[in-house]
C-alpha cells in the first residue's frame, strides 16, 4: 500500500477501510437505504399515518389510494403504517441475531483456534453436529422449543449462524497463530488471554465482519420465513414475514397485500447485500490501493 502525502499519516486500518468503502457507490447506496430504514424504524410511530392495529371497517382490502398509500388488509388496517412499524422488528432482529451469533461464534472459534488439540476437536465436532442440520429446520425447532416472542425468536435465529462464525475465526486464527509477532508477544510475556484477544482476534476478525454484514440479510429472510409459517413474531405485530403470511390467502384478489411487505424485505436484503459486498471489497487486501 502506497502512502501518499500527509493526509494518510497516522492512518489506521479502520480509517483506510472507511475510505475504501466510501468510494464504493453501490455500498454507499446500500448504506443510505439502511440508514434511512433505521431512521424510519426509530421514528416509526411519528411517520406512520395510522396505528398498526387501527381498523378501518369501511375499507377492507382496498387497493392503494391517497388515504391508504399501500392499501388496506383484510380487516381494514393500513398496510403502509404496518410496513413502517414492521421495519423496527425485521431490521432489529436481523442485526441483533447476527451480532449475538457472531459474538458467541468468535469466542468459541477463538478458544478452539488457540487451544488446538483435543479441545479444538471437541468444539469443532459439536459445531459440526449443529451445522449438519438444515439451517431452516434448526431455526424452526429452536423457535418451537423456545416459544414465540421477540427475544426468543432472536435467540432461535442466532443459534444457526454460530458454527459458521466460529469456523471462520478459527481458520483465520490457525493461520495467524504461527506468525512471528505471536512468538514475539510470548517473548515479552503476554498471557494467553492477552495474546488471544489483543493480538490474534483483531488480526483474524476481518472475514467475520464481512460474514456479519452478509448474515444480516440472511437472518431477515429467515425471520420472515419463520413468521410466514406461523412461528416467531406473532400477529398482530406487524413483522414483514407475518404480514406476508396473513396475506397469502388473498394473493389473487388483492396482490398489493403481498407486494408491499415483500418489497420491503427485498429492498432491505438488497441494501444489506450491497453494503456487505462493499465491506468485503474494502477489506480485501488485494484491492488495497
Amino acid at each position, binding site marked *: 500500500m502506497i502512502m501518499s502525502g500527509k493526509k494518510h499519516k497516522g492512518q489506521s486500518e479502520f480509517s483506510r477501510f472507511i475510505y475504501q468503502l466510501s468510494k464504493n457507490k453501490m455500498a454507499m447506496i446500500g448504506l443510505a437505504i439502511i440508514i434511512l430504514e433505521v431512521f424510519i424504524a426509530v421514528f416509526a410511530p411519528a411517520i406512520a399515518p395510522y396505528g398498526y392495529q387501527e381498523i378501518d371497517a369501511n375499507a377492507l382490502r382496498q387497493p392503494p389510494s391517497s388515504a391508504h398509500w399501500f392499501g388496506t388488509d383484510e380487516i381494514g388496517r393500513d398496510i403502509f403504517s404496518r410496513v413502517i412499524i414492521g421495519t423496527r422488528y425485521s431490521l432489529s432482529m436481523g442485526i441483533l441475531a447476527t451480532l449475538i451469533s457472531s459474538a458467541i461464534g468468535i469466542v468459541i472459534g477463538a478458544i478452539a483456534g488457540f487451544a488446538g488439540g483435543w479441545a479444538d476437536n471437541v468444539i469443532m465436532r459439536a459445531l459440526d453436529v449443529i451445522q449438519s442440520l438444515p439451517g431452516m429446520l434448526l431455526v424452526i425447532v429452536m423457535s418451537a422449543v423456545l416459544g414465540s416472542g421477540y427475544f426468543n425468536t432472536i435467540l432461535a435465529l442466532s443459534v444457526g449462524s454460530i458454527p459458521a462464525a466460529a469456523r471462520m475465526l478459527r481458520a483465520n486464527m490457525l493461520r495467524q497463530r504461527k506468525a512471528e509477532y505471536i512468538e514475539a508477544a510470548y*517473548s*515479552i510475556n503476554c498471557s494467553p488471554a492477552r495474546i488471544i484477544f489483543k493480538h490474534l482476534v483483531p488480526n483474524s476478525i476481518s472475514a467475520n465482519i464481512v460474514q456479519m454484514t452478509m448474515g444480516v440479510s440472511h437472518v431477515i429472510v429467515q425471520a420472515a420465513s419463520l413468521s410466514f409459517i406461523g412461528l416467531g413474531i406473532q400477529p398482530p405485530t406487524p413483522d414483514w414475514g407475518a404480514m406476508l403470511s396473513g396475506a397469502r390467502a388473498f394473493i389473487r384478489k388483492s396482490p398489493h397485500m403481498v407486494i408491499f411487505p415483500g418489497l420491503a424485505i427485498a429492498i432491505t436484503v438488497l441494501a444489506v447485500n450491497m453494503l456487505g459486498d462493499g465491506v468485503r471489497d474494502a477489506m480485501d487486501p488485494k484491492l488495497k490501493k
Partner: protein
Amino acid sequence: MSENKSYLKIENLRVEYFSSKEVVHAVNGVNLRMHKGKTLGLVGETGAGKTTIAKSILRILPDVGSRIVEGSITVDGQDLLKLKENDMRKIRGNDISMIFQDPMTALNPVQRVGEQISEAVRLHSDMSKEDCDKRAKEMLKMVGITEDRFSEYPHQFSGGMKQRIVIAIALACNPKILLADEPTTALDVTIQAQVLDLVAELQKKFNTSMLLITHDLGVVAQVCDDVAIIYAGQIVEYGTKEQIFHHPSHPYTVGLFGAIPDMAGDDEWLHPIEGLPPDPTKPIKGCAFAPRCKFATDKCFNETPVTHKTPDGHECSCHNMKEALKEEEK
C-alpha cells in the same frame, strides 16, 4: 574466558521436536558461556539449532511438539529450566528479551507501534499507561524514530525502521540479556550496518549481554566478542573472535571461511562445503561433520569427538584438529 566470569551458562542442552512419526534432534548437548556485557556470536547454517537455543533460553518453545530433554540454562546462578512458569514470566521480556528475525512479521499489523512498545513495558511494571507510553516514546527516540510516529501502524514503516521498533520493544525493559535472532538477515546491507551499530551502541549503554545468532561471518566480525560455531545441534568450536578468525581449527569452521568468496583474487568457482547437514531425525554416530569432512578417518565415524584446547587456548571438538590447523596455515 574463565568459568566464573560467565553470566549465562548453557550446559549439555538437548532439545527435540517430535511428531507422531518421528523425532527431530534439534539441539544435541550444547555447552555455551556468555559473559556480562559481551556479545557472543552463534554461527551455523540453517537448521543447526540456533533459534531453538534462543527459544529454549526464553522457554517459548511450542508446548506441543517440542521438549527440552536435558541440560541446564543458568543465568546468574539460577537455572531457568527449573523455574516455575510464574517466576519465568518475571524474567521473560524483562531480564531476557529477544529480537526476531523478520521485522515484516514480528510486529502485530493491526496495533499501533507505540502501543506495542508500551505493552512490553506495561507487562513488567506497575507504571500507569501514560508513563508506559512516555517510556515507549523515549525508546522510539533512542532507536532514531521521531515521537510523532508513535501512533502509526507497522505498514507505514520501512523494513529497517520496523526492525528498529522490534529492537525498541526488546530493549524497552532494559534487559540483562538480549537474544538477537538474525536481526539483520531480512535487511539490505546499508540498513544492516545501521541496525548493528544501533544495537552495539545501546548494548554498551546498558551493559547488556547479547547472543547474536547469525550465519553471516561479516556481521560476527563487526559486532561479536566471542564466537561459537554450531553444527547439527552441537558446538564444534568456541573462542574469542580473534582466536576463531585467526586460527579456525575445526574443519567445518575452516570450510566456512573457505566459502567466503575472495574479493581480491579471480576465482572461477565458489568453494562450498560439499554435502548436506545430517538428517536430524537420525541419531548421530561419531562426529556429525564426518561425512562432509576431508580429514575424516574411521575414528570420526565411530567415536564422538571430545572438546580439546587448541594451541591458542580456545575450544574445538575434532579428532583431527591438527590436520585441519595445518591446512589452514597453508
